[in-house]
């Protein structure tokens, strides 16, 4: 009987699992399906394509508009991630390990920024960046991305850092290492998984942004893919851009799917801050 109940329980959980998977996957499959449809079948209203084609992908990779936006997206997100994780790691280490006045203030400020309505920054940044001549440039987007990624980085990393066995640091210091050496030689290697997880979360955040991307850019020079998508017109002005938009959407979704497939455990632990117990 016990066996029977576990089978039934498994079945019930299995059904719930399927429900979640369908809920999560349908919109993604739909846009992928649209991207493979031929222009003739695009408006047939069927969920799966009847005729498959790769033309939409050829179209977008033939246009400068998309390729340029993709390069911008990748470059801007990578630079912002790198800087945010380095600065965030420094601050998170200080917050979780050192005693200094002003610590509470920093934690408070980053909490405030995490909750900050980004649209409130659009108007002043628009004006300031025009004056500084960084409007519509990479740094013009990288700066706000770093700012809004920092609270995320600091919180996630502080949580990771707290789970590191700090006795090792004490031992290193007893052996004559300075605080800075203890950080570099002992703690940094232990913190690497946390850093990596944080980098993924920050990258997803930057990759995702739309508001700053359409407000602080005006040309292909620095427009990222999400922003470019909303200006997409297809190969010629008279072509329906649906297929091209869907193909571009799929291209920028692929890295996210890969991250999620390979690093599900890390992302979940990063977001729940319940990382590996030290």
């Amino acid at each position: 009987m016990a066996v029977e109940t576990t089978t039934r329980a498994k079945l019930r959980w299995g059904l719930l699992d399927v429900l979640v998977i369908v809920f999560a996957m349908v919109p993604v499959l739909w846009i992928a399906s649209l991207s493979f449809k031929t222009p003739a079948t695009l408006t047939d209203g069927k969920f799966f394509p009847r005729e498959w084609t790769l033309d939409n992908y050829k179209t977008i990779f033939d246009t400068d508009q998309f390729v340029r936006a993709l390069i911008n997206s990748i470059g801007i997100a990578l630079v912002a991630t790198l800087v945010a994780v380095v600065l965030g790691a420094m601050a998170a280490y200080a917050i979780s390990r050192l005693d200094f006045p002003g610590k509470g203030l920093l934690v408070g400020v980053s909490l405030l920024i995490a909750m900050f309505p980004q649209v409130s920054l659009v108007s002043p940044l628009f004006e300031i960046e025009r004056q500084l001549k960084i409007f519509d440039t990479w740094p013009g987007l990288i700066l706000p991305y770093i700012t809004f990624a920092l609270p995320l980085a600091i919180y996630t990393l502080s949580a990771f850092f707290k789970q590191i066995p700090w006795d090792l640091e004490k031992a290193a210091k007893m052996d004559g290492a300075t605080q800075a050496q203890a950080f570099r030689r002992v703690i940094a290697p232990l913190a690497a998984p946390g850093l990596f997880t944080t980098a993924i979360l920050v990258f997803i955040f930057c990759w995702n942004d739309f508001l700053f991307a359409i407000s602080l850019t005006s040309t292909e020079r620095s427009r990222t893919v999400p922003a470019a998508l909303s200006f997409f017109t297809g190969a010629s002005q008279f072509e329906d851009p649906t297929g091209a938009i869907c193909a571009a959407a799929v291209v920028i979704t692929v890295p996210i799917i890969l991250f999620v497939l390979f690093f599900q455990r890390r992302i979940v632990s990063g977001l729940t801050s319940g990382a590996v117990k030290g």
Partner: protein
Amino acid sequence: MSISATPTGANTAVEETRRQTTVPTQRGGRRKPPLSENKKAERRLGWLLCAPAALVMVAVTAYPIIYSVWLSLQRYDLRFPDQREFIGLENYVTVLTNEFWWTAFGVTALITVVTVAVELVLGMGLALIMHRTLVGRGLVRTSALIPYGIVTVVAAFSWRYAWTPGTGYLADLFSDGAPLTERASSLAIIMLAEIWKTTPFMALLLMAGLALVPEDLLKAASTDGATAWQKFTKVMLPVMKPAILVALLFRTLDAFRVFDNIFVLTAGGNETSSVSMLAYNNLIRGLNLGIGSTMSVLIFITVAIIAFVFVKLFGTAAPGSDDGERR
């Protein structure tokens, strides 16, 4: 949440280790200069490590928000730069007596309340599934992360085409076609898109709370004959309360910023603009920096009020309010 610096108590752990190693020394004691040097070095390192992050955050938010207040007190339309002048609170009067502003405010409030409420329920269900499922835990968690990770604009396009007559698989659900051209159905679709995208995030935050529920307690409750519902309300919910409040705070403030989905789905047509959408339109499309900034400041104040109310509710459970104690 302590915004002011309160080094004492905030670092009990660090304080304790120090006390152990420096028993004979008083604070700043001069008899043992090496230790005091050590403390000074620690302070200096602490400031040094935090300075870059703090500088960037303050430079990119504090200064602009102050500048934004300054801009909001001026008549400043980039199409008529000659007419730029200081006009005091006139912009605020203009915005606060404008019906578009209040419509957008109502839409934003509606979307915030409905989506956060639905997400709390769905997110709790999803968190329970991800936490307790007997089969395919990895698979469920992986697929739940996809809505979280996907670019909002991409998801929004998927929903838009799903409801577009002729193209979409969902368009026929409404007999009169074009649901994205009606106000009520547009709002419903915007909320659906928001809920789909952010329920997993809510669920992950709640799952962090679920992980804190002691298994023994649940077993003990079962032995005492508690039903599943009783276990949920009497054992799990109380333990999860801080996690629930954190999740609610983050999601509420995030929902209040709703922009991407509306931009793609309706572009604010049929009175579906949120306050962010309206501010963006005045600013980037209308190039009216004065009015746009005024809206920015008003949104900032609203968010600050929401945050303040939540923090009052939190008490000491605020995230990061006390970092040293949980080691």
